[in-house]
């Protein structure tokens, strides 16, 4: 049956099509978009089907590449945790792919559309691969595929993007080196690269210095890749200067996949007791994340450029996820896992709004949002929903994951981090109410917009369906995830927790 091959196909299909698109683009640029959307649509189908099978059968799906036995060959594993994240990634990338063509207005770049699609699909390949693989070295390879395509695609952005991409490359390479060194230390000590195998071999070696050094290298590598506080400096520049359609894919997904890898390393490869008792990093992580959240929130408040502001918010959101991970208990980890997927959709909806406004008004400054609701009611409403979710207003999903995070932090007794989380939420509220006030209550000077121009029934906001559908979808997902939060936590996330945190 073909269904058993989905774990491999979800990585191989975008990889293959990325190169087919490149050749097809030489001859017929028009055929690229349908091809890309079909591929990403199939990825959505694969991921949803796999998650459904995991839920109904109640056991993880194992797939052996080349038919080799796990400790020697590469194994792809889909369980509750990465099945859930896979669905998020594939759904977001499908709609980001839809928006990509619409977002590129520059004539010089438009002629390079096939290259854009190639890099875009390679990016998706990398992200899906990182999530689905059960092999630490394979994870490194796919991390590099995702990173390198990110460097290239960011460099295609507006003025200064090449410099930002170069800086990202320096940081990213250091992160990848640290991760690889960590993998090397684990391999020297155990002789295995398989995650499941490592988790069985490692407990006897927890006192060894090699393992501790390897663990620290792994954490610092992932920290750089996910934009944790002291090493986040590559993030705001590169994500705010990238082409708008690209930041819709990159900004929500890349850092969240990093957070997923962090959870995998800390709680699957290593037993949870290692990072709480034997080599207690959770206190340090929580402290660093607290400073990072404060720092990022204050800096976000200082920005006039909306896309840059959102980038600082990502740094803060990563801090929230680290809070959850560092709480290392039942509720904290539920919050962290739920927040990974929630934050993908919140950030995607906000970044797509920023991208649409940037394309319509030519600036991503806050002034571009003046009186926006009269010209673009749908866009403004999506902004409203995304903003409420980041602040944490109940019907949206941001509230529920923050609720679990707060419960977890109280249980772990981390009151400093808890205070920081609440202060940061307040800052977010100030931040977004300022933006919402500009959008809804300030009026642009007369004649700045020609309201009601070409108001055909199918063009709300004068936008094409390619930008409208993703935007509305992301916003409705933000609300849907909030409404269904109980079901999702009960049926998926509870089972995604490591054994030590269940119950």
């Amino acid at each position, binding site marked *: 049956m073909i269904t058993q091959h989905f774990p491999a196909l979800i990585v*191989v299909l975008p990889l293959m099509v990325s*190169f087919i698109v490149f*050749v097809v683009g*030489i001859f017929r640029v028009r055929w690229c978009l349908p091809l890309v959307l079909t591929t990403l649509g199939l990825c959505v189908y694969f991921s949803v089907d796999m998650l459904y099978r995991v839920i109904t059968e109640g056991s993880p799906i194992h797939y052996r*590449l*080349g038919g080799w036995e796990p400790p020697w060959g590469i194994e792809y594993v889909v369980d509750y945790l990465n099945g859930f994240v896979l669905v998020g990634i594939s759904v977001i990338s499908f709609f980001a792919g839809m928006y990509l063509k619409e977002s590129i207005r520059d004539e010089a770049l438009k002629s390079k559309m096939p290259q854009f699609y190639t890099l875009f699909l390679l990016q998706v390949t990398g992200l899906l691969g990182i999530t689905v693989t059960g092999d630490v070295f394979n994870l490194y390879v796919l991390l590099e595929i995702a990173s390198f395509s990110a460097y290239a695609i960011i460099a295609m952005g507006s003025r200064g993007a090449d410099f930002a991409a170069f800086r990202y490359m320096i940081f990213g390479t250091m992160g990848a080196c640290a991760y690889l060194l960590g993998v090397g230390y684990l391999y020297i000590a155990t002789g295995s690269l398989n995650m499941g195998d490592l988790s069985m071999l490692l407990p006897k070696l927890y006192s060894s210095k090699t393992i501790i050094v390897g663990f620290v290298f792994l954490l610092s590598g992932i920290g750089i890749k996910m934009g944790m506080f002291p090493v986040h400096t590559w993030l705001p520049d590169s994500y705010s200067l990238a082409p708008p359609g690209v930041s819709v894919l990159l900004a929500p997904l890349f850092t969240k996949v990093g957070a997923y890898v962090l959870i995998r390393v800390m709680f699957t490869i290593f037993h949870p007791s290692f990072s709480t008792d034997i080599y207690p990093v959770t206190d340090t992580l929580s402290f660093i994340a607290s400073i990072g959240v404060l720092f990022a929130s204050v800096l976000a408040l200082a920005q006039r450029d909306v896309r840059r502001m959102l980038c600082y918010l990502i740094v803060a959101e990563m801090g929230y996820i680290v809070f959850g991970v560092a709480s290392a208990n039942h509720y904290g980890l539920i919050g962290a896992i739920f927040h990974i997927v929630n934050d993908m959709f919140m950030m995607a909806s906000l970044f797509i709004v920023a991208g649409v406004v940037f394309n319509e008004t030519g600036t991503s400054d806050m002034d571009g949002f003046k009186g926006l609701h009269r010209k673009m009611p749908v866009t403004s409403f999506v902004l409203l929903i995304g903003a409420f979710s980041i602040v944490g207003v109940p019907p949206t999903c941001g509230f529920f994951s923050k609720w679990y995070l707060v419960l977890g932090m109280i249980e772990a007794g981390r009151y400093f981090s808890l205070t920081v989380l609440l202060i940061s939420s307040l800052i977010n509220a100030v931040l977004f109410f300022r933006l919402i006030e500009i959008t809804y209550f300030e009026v642009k000077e007369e004649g700045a917009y020609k309201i009601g121009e070409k108001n055909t029934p199918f063009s709300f906001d004068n936008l094409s369906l390619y930008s409208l559908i993703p935007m509305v979808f992301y916003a409705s997902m933000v609300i849907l995830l909030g409404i269904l939060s109980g079901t999702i936590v009960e049926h998926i996330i509870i089972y995604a927790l490591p054994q030590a945190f269940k119950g």
Partner: protein
Amino acid sequence: MVRDVEDVIIKTIARIMVPIMQVYSLYVYVHGHISPGGGFQGGCIMAASFILLAVAFNLGEAKRRLKEKAIAVFCSLGVFIYAWTGVVPLFFGGNFLDYSKWSHILPGGEVMARYYGMAFIELGVQIAVMAVMVSIFLDLVTAGRHEEVLGKDDDGFYSR
């Protein structure tokens, strides 16, 4: 590097060297199973032969032999061969990359099928590495502006 070099010795030696290098690169590829070598090394030598053409003659000469469009197609073709080598076993009930299932198409049993699988993969690597190396060289040497350096008559991919 773009201007024509008027040196008979360099041109003659290059003209003799290029085919030898290309045959040698194929040798390195084929012999990669049992000795140091393989697709990557073979691809690099193959690319070096085109780069030698560009250095000894001029850029136009190298691009006349290996068109920009061809480079683009070869880049993709290499990866395409690689991926399909892994995908074909799916049709015969194997997992992705399970070369032993090639024995359904090719003669010689499962062990030989794995051998063929490796050969195909290396062929893909050879083609992709060759094309990418030449492409990187062209981009570096023209600073990415092929059409300006070579004039409008070139029917390269970027000058459309």
